C-alpha cells in the first residue's frame, strides 16, 4: 500500500513527449551551469542548482524509460 508504482501508460501522449523533452533539456543545462560556475569558483548555489537540474533531468528520463518498458510489457501481454 505504501509504494507508489509508476502509472501504467495506455498510449504515448504529448505529455510524455514534454516530459522527455524537459528531461533532455535539463541535463545539458545542469552540466553547463556546473561547468561555468566551477570554472570560476566552487560555490554552493552553482553546485546546488546545476546538480538539481541534472538530477531532475535524469529522473525524468528514467521515468520515461520505465513507462516505456511498462508500455511494451502491456503490449506484449495483450498480443499474446
Amino acid at each position, binding site marked *: *500500500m*505504501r509504494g*507508489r508504482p509508476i*502509472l501504467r501508460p495506455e498510449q504515448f501522449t504529448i505529455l510524455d513527449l514534454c516530459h522527455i523533452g*524537459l528531461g533532455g*533539456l535539463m541535463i545539458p*543545462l545542469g552540466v*553547463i*551551469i556546473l561547468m*561555468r*560556475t566551477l*570554472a*570560476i*569558483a566552487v*560555490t*554552493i*548555489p*552553482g553546485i*546546488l*542548482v546545476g546538480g*538539481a*537540474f541534472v538530477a*531532475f533531468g535524469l529522473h525524468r528520463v528514467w521515468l520515461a524509460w520505465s513507462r516505456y518498458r511498462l508500455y511494451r510489457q502491456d503490449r506484449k501481454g495483450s498480443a499474446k
Partner: protein
Amino acid sequence: MLTSACKLVLAALFEIAIWVWELTASVKCCRMVQNRLQRCRASRTGECFGGFGMSDNGDTATAERVELRRDVTIWGSYTWGYADVGADIYVALGLVIGAAQGGAPLAFAAAGLVYIMIGLAFTELASSYPVAGGGHYYSLRGLGDFGGFVAGVALLLDYTIDIALFATASTGYLNFFLPYLGINLADFAVSIGPLQNVNLLWLGETLVMIIFLRWLNVRGIRESSLVNEVIGLVDLIMEMSVVVFGFILAWKPDLLVHQWLHEFPTPREFMYGFSLAIISFVGLESISQAAQETRRPATIIPRTSIALIFTVFILAVGFSVVGLGILPWQEFRAHEADPVAYLASHIPYLGVVAGPFAAFLGATILFISSNTGVMGDSRLIFSMSHFRLVGPWFHHVHPKYHTPSNAIIGFGWVGMVLTIIAFLTPRVLDTLANLYAFGATFGYMLVFTSLIRLRFSDPYTPRPYKVPLNLKRRRKDGSIVEIPVLGFLGLLGVSSIFATVVITHEIGRIAGPAWVLLCVIYYVIFRRRSGLPVFGNVPHDWEQEQMDVLNNAEEFELLEHYRQALIRRDRQQGILSRWSEGG
C-alpha cells in the same frame, strides 16, 4: 495637473480592463460551480461551501453535510496547487534577495529543505484525511478542540494576510505598466508627519481590488478548476522559460560568484532572509483543501503533492541563482514590487515581450491567490463554526447567494485594515510578509505536532503515503506504531524558522502573538457562554467520520483496511466491534 489627472484616469481604465477580462474568464469558466450551487439551492441543503451545507436561516443546529463533487483530476490537483504555491515566488523573490543579498540562494535552499518536510507531512495527512479543512482539521483530530482552534486562527491570520499581501503584490505587478502610460508611481507618494512615502495610488488600487474580491465571493463567483489548470500551466511554462532562457541567454556566473563571495549578508540579515524565504513555499494546503474534491485522493494526492514540492523547490532556488547571475541584488530590492517581471525584462531578445507578459501573468496569478485567501478564510471559519470552535455568526448564509457573507465581508474588512496599516510602514510588502511568515510557521508547527500525535492516537487510519524515515515500536497492547523521525526533524526545522521570525521580524513578533491571544480570549468567552468545555473536547465520532470520508472518496480498499483494523483492535480489547457484521 490636468495631464497627471488624465494619466491617472488612463491607468485606472487600463486596470479595470484587466480586471474585467479576468472576471469574464472566471464567469465563463465557472458554470460548473454555478450549476453545483444551483443544485444545492434546489435541494434546500444550502450552498456547497467547504463541504458543509446550511439552511437559509443560518441556524447551526440544522447544519448538514453536503459533499463536494469529486471532479479534480491528477493534473487538476497539480495545477490547482501550482496556481497557489507558484504565485509566491512573484512576491518572495524581491523580498528575500533584498534581505539575504548574495546569500539568497542559500536562504531559499535552507527554507526549501524545511518546506520539503512540511510538504511530505501534508502529503501524508491529506491522503489519509482527504477533507477540506487542512491544518485546522488535522490539529483538531490530533490535538483536540483547543489545538484545532489555535491552528485555525494561525491559518486565518495567514489567509487574511494572503488577501492583503497578494492583492498588494498583484497591483504592484499591474503598476509595471504605468511607465508605458507615462505615469510615475513615485509621484503619488505623500509624506504626512512621521509617515513617509505612503503611495496613495497603489493603496487605492489594492483596496479596490479587495472590495472587488469580496463582491465576487459574496455573489458566489469563483474561478473554476479549469481556470486554475490553465493559469497554473501557463505560469509553470512562463517561470520555467524565464529560468531556462535566463540561464542560456543572460546568466553571468562571475556576477553570481562575486555576490556570493563579496556581498554575503551578516548573520542577522541572512536569518531574516531565510525566515522570509518560507513564504515562497506557502500554499501547499491548497492541495489538502482540494482533497475533498479530488478523485481517488489516496492515489492522486501523493503523486501531485510530491511533484509539486520538488517543482517549486527547484524553481525557487533556480530563480534566485539565475537572478543573482543577471542583476545585482540591490536592483531586486529596488523592484521588490515586480521582481519577476523586472528579471524577465532583462533577458536579451525575449525581454521586450517576457517582461510585460510576466507582469500580466503575475498580476493575474496573484489576483487568484488573493482570492484563495478570501475563499480560504470563509471555508476555514465555516468549518470551525461547524465544529463549534467559533460562534454561529460566522455561519450566516446570504439569503440570495447562499454564501457565508458575514465571514467574507468580516475578513475582507480585516484584510483592508491590515493593508492600510502596512501602507503606513516604510516597506509595505515586507511588513505583510513578516506577518505571513509568522502565521505560516506557527500553523506548520501544529501540523507537525498533529502528524506525530496522530501516528500514536490514530494508528488504524490507512496511510496511503507515509513520510520517510520511520522507527517501528511495539506498544503494550501489541499494536505497532511507526514513529516519524522526519516529522520530528521537520518540527525542529519549522520551529527554528518560527524562532527566527520572532527574533528578527519586528512587526511579526508583536502583531502575530497579539492576534492569537485575542482569538484565544474570544474562544474562552464563546465556549464558556455556550456551556462547552474550554480546554476539553466536544465528543466527535471520528471513526464514523473517517468511514464516511473514505466511502465518499470511493477508496473502498482503504475503507476495508480501516474496518478490519478497527475490528482487530476491538477483538484485542475483548469487546464486540460495532464495525463487524454482527456489531
